């Protein structure tokens, strides 16, 4: 493995900032540990130092891109009242925290099945200066049938966001060590066909009273899943559109109540 110039530079700075030996950091990187875990942060939009920690999923540039776009959309509609948002599988909290940071009207809740993720998301809220009154992450399993009735869930929500696990088991076995060896498989594998979580989310979208009358849904999907997810959401009667990421992949399925 050959370390790119930029990575070496970032590691040098990290070694200097944290008083660790550069050699040990380089060794970790050569063992395929993700750069973001070694440094301990990953900038995400205007959030310059979002904390990342194994095994919680590292925010991806594709996600950063659509969340910024969603924030622009939410801000441009200049709502007079608060917008309530639910993020399913919140991980580091990157999606709701950036939206809270960019849109002052957003009040968000994050759910994750991993206690590591919940702890990290709450830490990140504090680091980003988002108060408890605007963001809280809690432990929960949104696949569980009783989930909508959980105490921490307060429907109806105006915005539903999610970057659920969407990798198929076959694909998972092909992933590079950077991802497979260090990130939580629970945050990556989306059931037998990679679409399992979209079925669950579709049933939540269709559930009466779960989303408000002008609700909007934004779901990140794998590079070849947009059409399948659109088909799933079609019966809900929401208006469906797809956002393409900067690399030309259909990345985000958007559904809006008509």
């Amino acid at each position, binding site marked *: 493995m050959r370390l*790119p*110039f*930029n*990575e070496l*530079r*970032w590691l040098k700075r990290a070694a200097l900032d944290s008083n660790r030996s550069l050699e040990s950091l380089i060794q970790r990187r050569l063992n395929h540990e*993700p*750069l*973001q875990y070694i440094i301990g942060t*990953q*900038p*995400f*939009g*205007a959030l*310059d130092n979002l904390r990342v920690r194994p095994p919680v*999923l*590292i925010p*991806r*540039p*594709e*996600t*950063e*891109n659509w969340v*910024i776009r969603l924030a622009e959309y939410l801000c441009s509609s200049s709502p007079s009242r608060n917008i309530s948002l639910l993020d399913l599988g919140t991980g580091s909290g990157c999606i709701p925290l950036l939206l809270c940071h960019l849109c002052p009207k957003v009040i968000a809740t994050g759910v994750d099945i991993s206690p590591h993720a919940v702890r990290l998301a709450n830490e990140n809220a504090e680091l980003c200066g988002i108060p408890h009154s605007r963001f809280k992450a809690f432990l929960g399993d949104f696949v569980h049938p009783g989930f909508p009735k959980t105490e921490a869930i307060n429907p109806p929500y105006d915005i539903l966001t999610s*970057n659920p*696990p*969407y*990798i198929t088991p076959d*694909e998972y076995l092909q*992933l*590079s060590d*950077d*991802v497979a060896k260090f*990130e939580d498989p629970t*945050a*990556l594998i989306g059931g037998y066909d990679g679409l399992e979580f979209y079925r669950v989310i579709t049933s939540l979208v269709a559930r009466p009273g779960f989303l408000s009358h002008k609700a909007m849904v934004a779901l*990140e999907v*794998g*590079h*070849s899943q947009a059409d399948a997810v659109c088909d799933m959401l079609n019966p809900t009667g929401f208006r469906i559109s797809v956002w393409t*990421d*900067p*690399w030309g*992949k259909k*990345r985000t399925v958007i559904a809006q109540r008509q």
Partner: protein
Amino acid sequence: MASPEDVHRLRQLKESELLQEAWDHWTSTLKALENIKPLLSDPDPAMMSLAAEEAVELDQKLSTILKHTFPSLLVPPSTTANLSALVELKSGVGGTESSLFLETLLRMYMRFSQSHSWKASVVANNDNEGGGIKDAIVEIKGLGAYDTLRWESGVHRVQRVPATESGGRVHTSTVTVIVLPLIEEQDAQKEALYSMDDIRLEVMRARGAGGQHVNKTESAVRITHIPTGITVSMQDERSQHQNKRRAFQVLSARLMDRKITREIAERRATKNSLIKSADRSEKIRTYNYAQERVTDHRIGLSIMNLSSVIEGNALQDFTDALKQDFEETTMEDMLESEA
């Protein structure tokens, strides 16, 4: 109660304060000289010589006001006085030796900034494999940074025996410096330097599926301003958003630079005068290590203490001299157009 017109008048008044001060100084000195004149023919020789001495002194004062104070007031106030600077350094001829010298110049500007209490940070840099830095961009934030540094633009030449040269032969290498006016994001929008419709944004080609499937650390972006063909690539930051922001910052600085250059050209065209234009391919300065000498070719100024220049201190002598030269040229220019 202050109205907008009051604010305008207040500003006018404030701006004319310097003129008033200079005029008051002139008239009071002149009056003192008038008062002393009768004493020059005083019958008392002691009194007469005292008066003569004072008259010489007052005369000198008057001529200083006439020769320096008044002309300096004619130079129009800088419209760029508030701007910070973006300094681009690019290695030229000389290979690794040029990259090593670039590193030295970079340090010089960092130290110079520090002594002015400007905030300097390297926003992009490409290391050279053989040592030194291939190219770099430094953001220098602070009042007057651009006005002070703008004459650093041009080709800087180094003459020395490279550390890698075993034969002891003197090499000549160059580094190109470009100083751009840096404006804040919100001001860039006010200036309307570009429209988003004229921007083409490209990302580094991703391999494979993207998203959760891969963990990319490279998030290079390239923006192109279609009407001017200016392209900016940025890859030093760790997120695409940050790289994009940096790229737009550099684009704004380049467009602002063009705007200022265009405005100066237009002013000159209307005055129909001939002033040497700042040509960035022009060799402006030579750093000769063997002679411990730095020479600025535009004003013919040599400083015989190279170390002090590259340590950042004596650079001030160059920037001061260049500023004075600029003011004098501006005045000559004005006089010529009057004539």
